[in-house]
């Protein structure tokens, strides 16, 4: 990751894409969210959703995978340029997570991030706090998922 000092509000990047297959939707649901509209096509047709769709927590988990992979790529690119990547700390949580539309079996979701706020950490000198808005769009360009994540990032001056 870039150092806190080098991150600007408004910085946007595409994190990656993921195809949600019926098989993996049911596999995640069977472990963590076995509601009928995430488990069975026929039952899903009878529900509000109208067709098999992913658990919102499945969408959230896949978004996290995209965040981790993208951060690793960024770090590898920095090392290649001879720079030292900044450490990022654990996250204290998130706000305003929205499941705007169902993610249906077969949908391809593209995840993006945009830095919306940055401030110095009062509790941890040498670190800053970055608030990032993460968004997922489906193959029709419709936003389906969004949340604001908070994470600690090392300062260059530390």
């Amino acid at each position, binding site marked *: 990751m870039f150092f806190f000092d080098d991150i600007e509000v408004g910085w946007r990047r595409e994190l990656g894409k993921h195809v949600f297959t019926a098989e993996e939707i049911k596999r995640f649901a069977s*472990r*963590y*969210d*076995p*509601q009928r*509209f995430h488990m069975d096509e026929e039952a899903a047709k009878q*529900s*509000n*959703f109208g067709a098999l769709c992913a*658990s*919102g*927590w499945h969408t*959230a*988990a*896949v978004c*996290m*995978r995209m965040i*981790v992979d993208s951060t690793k790529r960024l770090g590898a690119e920095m090392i290649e340029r001879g720079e030292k990547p900044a450490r990022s*700390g*654990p*996250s*204290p*949580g*998130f*706000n*305003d*997570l*929205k*499941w*705007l539309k169902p993610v249906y079996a077969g949908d391809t979701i593209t995840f993006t991030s945009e830095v919306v706020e940055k401030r110095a950490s009062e509790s941890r000198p040498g670190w800053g706090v970055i608030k990032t808005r993460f968004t997922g769009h489906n193959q029709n360009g419709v936003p389906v998922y969004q*949340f604001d994540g908070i994470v600690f990032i090392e300062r260059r001056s530390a």
Partner: protein
Amino acid sequence: MSLIYFEDLAAGQVREWGPRTVTREEIVAFASEFDPQPMHLDEDAAKQSILGGLAASGWHTCAIMMRMFCDGLLLNSTSQGSPGIDETLWKKPVRPGDALTVRHTVLETRASKSRPDIGLVRHQCEVLNQRGEPVMEMRFTSMFTKRSAA
């Protein structure tokens, strides 16, 4: 147990589910698929991290809470999904072997303005470990079909 409709949920109700033990295997399996950072995967690397030892992905804790919410209430209800989560706080690491309990409180119930068959319920879930320490706290809204619409 009879099916839980919107009308059966009232502000102030408290329910508790668990305990559920979180194993090292499932922490690593979830993290390998969804959150492959060293502190969720490898004991030695985790010791070097701020978390000071292997800990579950926060998203894994969310998923475990969801499963306990499903088994405790949703699967026996007229649940119609959720528009989202207002706030989630990851307060302490969840370690291998931790036994988690969910304390669920109904904060508020109201009718949907746009959909007469649906009611909206605002929930709070506190996830506690075996020492009674809160590890996660979450507030969110979800939808239930009304009995009057059944």
